[in-house]
């Protein structure tokens, strides 16, 4: 999965081509809207009186075309859906905002981009809408603080797709949306014929073939299905910057790419308890500790601040992780030894969660390093993998001293640093928000 390209996730002065690329996208966008007639407010408003349904046709054709192509390339393994911006769901502000937009639409006769197409071709009403738009955006910026809590929290569900809501496979949702859109087009043509008195025999037959093509592509998506976790895992890569001593004695920073499995076997992503301990005080990182052991073990002992996400439930929590991961978010998975944590690491890596590390030696190792002086924690011989090698008097959870070792006592602890922030897409932005 090579796409989307990391270099183009946003504009950057380091890569000036990005400005051109986004400018070209905008150019094509504005051009297409204008040539479809969206510079004319009357044509846009006619939509709402059923005389002419150009808006519906253009919009939904665009949606099903893009949607089918997106999910086709996802199912072929070319496009990484986890790296594509999917608008997070803020239900109540979305509903109210949408309704207000509807009112603005029918009064003003435009939406923002169509007003650009209109204003740029000399329509004075388009220019007035644009000006009003700046005022509207200004007013929102100034009034948001009065309802900021509602705006940022009410009905926030994170990254939720229609597949999640209906519990249906992606291909099925794609097909249903395509069929729904085609049905709407048929209905629209009937309305145009009856109310708008349009002569439908002059419509190009090509549209029927086009409909067939889109349905066929949707069926392909249904049959191929979405890539499995294993398939995604095989394509996952880890990048590392390594200082290499050159032949002439200078040191050069080189980027090395590993497959996920290589990263595991070469132990690039396993960090020692010492490094994890120090990472908790690193202001530049947002550290999340994921304890994937069963709840019983977690209750006996866990690191302070660790979240208990038993391995079986991890997959369902991934959308939440993806929606909130900032560029400097680092996740450390831990289990009693390494087996469970490694499985969890594989899952998270396959699903596109960035900067995931494994606690080397697990909780057993952590206690050996930080808890060997604690008289309450008694070592015991455990024969099996993923068993706690210690006995605890009670399920005190994180109330042991080594759950949160003293920073002053352990100030000079040594380790070989392995954590490197791999810049993946900044999930906290990417849309129009």
């Amino acid at each position, binding site marked *: 999965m090579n*796409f*989307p390209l990391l270099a183009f996730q946003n504009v950057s002065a380091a890569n000036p081509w990005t*400005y*051109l690329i*986004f*400018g070209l*996208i*905008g*150019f*094509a*966008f*504005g051009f297409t809207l204008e040539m*479809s007639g969206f510079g004319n407010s*009357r*044509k846009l*408003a006619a*939509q*709402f*009186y059923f005389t002419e349904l150009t808006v519906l046709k*253009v919009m939904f054709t*665009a*949606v099903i*075309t*893009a*949607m089918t*192509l997106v999910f086709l390339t996802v199912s072929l393994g070319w496009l990484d859906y986890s790296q594509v*911006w*999917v*608008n997070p*769901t*803020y239900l109540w502000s979305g*509903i109210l*905002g*949408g*309704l*207000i*937009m*509807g009112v*603005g*639409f*029918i009064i*003003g006769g*435009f939406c923002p981009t169509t007003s650009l*197409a209109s204003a740029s*071709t*000399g*329509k004075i009403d*388009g220019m*007035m*809408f644009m000006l*009003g*738009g700046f*005022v*509207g955006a200004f007013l929102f910026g100034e009034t948001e*603080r009065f309802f900021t809590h509602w705006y940022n929290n009410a009905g926030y*569900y994170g990254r939720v797709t229609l597949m999640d809501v209906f519990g249906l496979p992606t291909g099925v*949702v794609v097909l249903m949306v395509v069929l729904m859109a085609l049905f709407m087009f048929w209905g629209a043509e009937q309305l145009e014929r009856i109310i708008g008195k349009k002569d439908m025999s002059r419509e190009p037959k090509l549209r029927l073939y086009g409909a067939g093509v889109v349905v066929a592509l949707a069926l392909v998506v249904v049959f191929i299905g979405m890539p499995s976790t294993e398939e995604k895992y095989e394509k996952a890569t880890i990048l590392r910057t390594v200082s290499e001593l050159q032949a002439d004695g200078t040191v050069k920073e080189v980027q090395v790419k590993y497959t996920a499995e290589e990263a595991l076997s070469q132990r690039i992503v396993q960090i020692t308890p010492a490094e994890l301990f120090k990472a908790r005080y690193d202001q530049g990182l947002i550290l999340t500790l994921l304890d994937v052991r069963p709840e019983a073990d977690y209750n006996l002992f866990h690191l302070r601040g660790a979240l208990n996400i038993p391995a079986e439930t991890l997959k369902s929590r991934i959308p939440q992780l993806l929606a909130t991961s900032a560029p400097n978010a680092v996740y450390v998975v831990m289990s009693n030894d390494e087996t469970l944590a490694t499985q969890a690491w594989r899952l998270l890596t396959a699903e596109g969660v960035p900067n995931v590390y494994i606690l080397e030696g697990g909780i057993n190792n952590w206690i050996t390093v930080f808890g060997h002086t604690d008289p309450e924690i008694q070592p015991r011989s455990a024969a099996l993998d993923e068993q706690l090698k210690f006995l605890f008097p009670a399920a005190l959870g994180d109330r042991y001293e080594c759950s949160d070792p003293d920073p002053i006592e352990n100030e000079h602890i040594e380790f070989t640093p392995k954590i490197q922030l791999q810049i993946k897409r900044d999930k906290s932005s990417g*849309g*129009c*928000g």
Partner: protein
Amino acid sequence: MTVSSKPVSKPFDLKALFNRPAKPYVHPYLGGVILGIVLFLALFFTGNGLGSSGATSRLVVFVQDQFIPDHVDRTPYLLRMAGGDKNPLDDWLVPVFFGALLGGFTSGLIFGRVKLETTKGPRISDRTRWMLAFLGGVLFLYGARMARGCTSGQALTGGAVLSAGSWVVMLCIFGGAYGLAYFVRKLWN
């Protein structure tokens, strides 16, 4: 002696360029397919879709930041776009915004639709139309920022990637417009 009166052809006739006969619009399904392909290519190569209202906010806060930067730094909504040294124009939405202006203009130029005029229903005056267009713009962008996207960002892009929230926003935009349509029918018909 006769002098041949062949008209001197000007290399670049500006007046003719802006007074071409208007060509018909592209068929809606074709326009939709092309728009869909543009959206797909944007998502495929950059992971971002299309958008517009975000750029408007950024342009506004950019201007605010020139005159009242302290206010910007104290208002959380503005802070995250333009706080401190942050340049609000350094975002992919901004080139898209200006590209769309240029693209709309170019299409209008090619198809002979660049003309200083007002599009409106037959029963209202130009001035009424201008005021209502302004009001519509105020409302629409206010709603767009509240919904975190407009028809391009939420309905088109979010719709195509099957975001549940985007479909809700899309339905509400159409619901709101259809709901009010009867009451403002004199504006358009």
